[in-house]
């Protein structure tokens, strides 16, 4: 109870204190409230700011990481692209080099081959030289030929002149005009005259048709020697009386040349004749028939005898009345043989 009494004493003081404190508190409540609000406001603001800061930091962090990631990805692409471009450029350059070399080679070899052109032009000039030299030789050869022809012609002319003037040759007594005694050696013309054969007179032309026919007789290469000296028959003033044949006909018949057979034409010394002669000797030595009388003629004459008889037989029917005349050409033929 003491405590109670003390409390009751204190009560008053307590009540006063309570009242005073509560009045003080009441009086401070507003300021305290405002202060508390302020403090809380500030604190909340701090918190919010801290939170915002945090948020922004996080956002930054996220964005940073995201952007970094993006850029790195992009960077890789860039690098790849750059690498690719570098590679392409390198390849391009190499391709340009190859194409450059190839084009140079191709043009130089196929399109405009300068070395081949040079070689061709050299070959052309060589060939030209060759052709020129050949043509030169040909021209010289032609010139020489012409000169030779001219020389020969001149020589022929000189020889002909010498032959014509053969009478100018010097004799033993009289020196000719080209062999003057005052000269040391005879003139070349003199020597030419000595060498040349004198030109005969030109043969007289026989204009009559009779002689022409005689000359052009088909088988006759050379008429018998005496026919050339045969003069033209004098034209008969009057036809001679009597049954005479045409003189031309007569002459033709008379001077018809011999057309000997092959056997007759051969000479005595030709091999077939000798062979025949051999068989003749054989026959003489050992005749097949002993009955036949051996003729007096020796075998060598036998052939002649044969052909003489043949000739006689040929000519007999022509030369019936002129048997005498027929013997003359025969004799001549025999003498020739």
């Amino acid at each position, binding site marked *: 109870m003491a405590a109670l009494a003390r409390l009751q004493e204190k009560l008053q003081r307590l009540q006063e204190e309570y009242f005073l404190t509560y009045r003080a508190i009441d009086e401070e409540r507003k300021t305290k409230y405002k202060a508390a609000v302020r403090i809380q406001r500030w604190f909340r603001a701090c918190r919010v700011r801290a939170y915002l800061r945090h948020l922004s930091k996080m956002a930054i962090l996220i964005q940073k990481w995201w952007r970094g990631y993006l850029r790195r990805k992009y960077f890789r692409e860039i690098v790849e692209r750059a690498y690719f471009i570098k590679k392409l450029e390198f390849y391009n350059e190499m391709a340009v080099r190859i194409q450059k070399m190839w084009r140079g080679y191709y043009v130089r070899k196929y399109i405009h081959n300068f070395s081949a052109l040079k070689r061709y032009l050299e070959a052309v000039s060589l060939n030209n030289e060759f052709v*020129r030299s050949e043509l030169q030789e040909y021209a010289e050869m*032609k010139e020489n030929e012409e000169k030779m022809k001219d020389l020969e012609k001149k020589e022929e002319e000189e020889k002909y002149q010498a032959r014509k003037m053969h009478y100018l040759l010097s004799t033993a007594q009289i020196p000719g005009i080209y062999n003057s005694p005052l000269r040391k050696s005879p003139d070349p013309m003199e020597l030419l005259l000595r060498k040349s054969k004198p030109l005969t007179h030109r043969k007289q032309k026989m204009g009559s048709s009779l002689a022409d026919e005689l000359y052009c007789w088909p088988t006759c290469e050379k008429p018998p020697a005496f026919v050339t000296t045969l003069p033209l028959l004098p034209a008969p003033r009057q036809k001679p009386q009597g049954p005479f044949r045409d003189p031309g006909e007569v002459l033709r018949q008379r001077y018809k040349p011999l057309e000997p057979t092959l056997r007759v034409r051969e000479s005595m010394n030709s091999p077939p004749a000798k062979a025949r002669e051999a068989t003749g000797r054989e026959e003489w030595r050992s005749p097949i028939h002993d009955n036949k009388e051996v003729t007096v003629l020796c075998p060598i004459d036998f052939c002649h005898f044969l052909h003489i008889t043949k000739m006689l037989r040929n000519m007999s029917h022509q030369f019936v009345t002129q048997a005498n005349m027929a013997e003359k050409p025969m004799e001549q033929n025999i003498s020739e043989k």
Partner: protein
Amino acid sequence: MSLRLAYSAVSGRGCVKISVVCLLRPLLLDVIPSVRQTVALALGRLADHDVEMAEAVVKAGILPQLICLLPEENRYYKKTAAFVLRAIAKHSPQLAQAVVQCGALEMLVVCLEDFDPGVKEGASWTFGYIARHNAELSQAVVDAGAVPLLVLCIQEPEIALKRIAASTLSDISKHSPELAQTVVDAGAIAHLAQMITNPDAKLKRQVLSALSQIAKHSVDLAELVVEAEIFPVVLTCLKDSDEYVKKNGATLIREIAKHTPELSQFIVNSGGVAALIDCIGSCRGTVRLPGIMTLGYVAAHSENLSMAVIVSKGISPLSACLIEEHEDHIKAAAAWALGQIGRHTAEHARHVATANVLPTLLDIFVDTRSSEDLKMKTKKALKNILQKCTYLPALEPLLHDAPPNIMKHVIGQFSKVLPHDSKARRLFVTTGGLKKVQEIKAEPGSLLQEYINTINNCYPEEIVRYYSPGYSEILLERVENYQPVL
């Protein structure tokens, strides 16, 4: 007697001509063959003498009587009849047409089949004279079947017959490609080619002329001629002593060369160019002309061939031609040929320019006595060469006396070369070229002015001003206006 008439008629030209013909006409049908022959000879000599006589003979209607019984006549009459026909036909195409119309061609073909070479010669000569005039008459000759017989005539041993047959074939084939083809189909080329080696000069003339007339029409014919292996035998003809053989040989090579580059190449390879150049160098006058034209054709085809011509020393004879010859057409041909050689590249133009050709060409161009054709050809040649020429020492002389249209090209070339070559610039100044350029007056805006500006831009301004005309006056004026500083 009739010959005497003929002689008197020929000698006394004024006397009555037609009556002579009428007098002779009944004698043509005389019984004795020698009278007929003499009459024909008289007629031939009359007609040979001049045109009016020939017309009179034709008008009198003698020709059908002359040739009606020709196959049965002897060879002298055939020869004389052929002589009459050709004496008439040679004067003009109308007379030749009259000869053809009276049926002479068949009779002449009969003559060509005769054995006697004189008759064949007369007949082929007549064919030649008929075919010479124009293409229709040639076609008539071909239609009569003369060509195979002529080819047979060529193979005969007599030289005169060969000559005439070759000249007839030449006259037939010169008119058109079809006629030439007919001649070729008859196998003429092989025989003609064999005869090139014959020593007779006149025969070679005719043979070469025939081959060139065949080859000139088309590429195929030219190739056929070449395939007959005429090269290199033809080159010996170019060294012949006869001028006309050389000319015809050069003509043949020209006709072959002008068609295609391959044929020209072939000619160059066989050394034809060298032979031609020697030929040109050794001849004078019109004989040179085909050779010059051949060089021009060969050079025109391609630059390699042009270089081959240059290498074979072709430029010097051509420039010698330009200087020596008096005839305008030969000079024109030489100028054209030089233009063809020089127009390809700078190398070619340099070769042409170093041979000192450009001043000669310029002289000819400026000369008042040259004909229009010559001037035009020279101008073209100059233009072609100048457009490629970069060899400045050769261009210098041209600066001084060229007319404006040539000057333009010369200045153009300078303006192309000077910007790149400093030594050339120095030379240009020292030789007085820059001075000359300043003196040229050109319309502003023209091509010449542009060239001059390009040249002036190559040099510093002081030098250009120094060389401009009237600079000394300007300097003196400045001296006058100068106030000396005391």
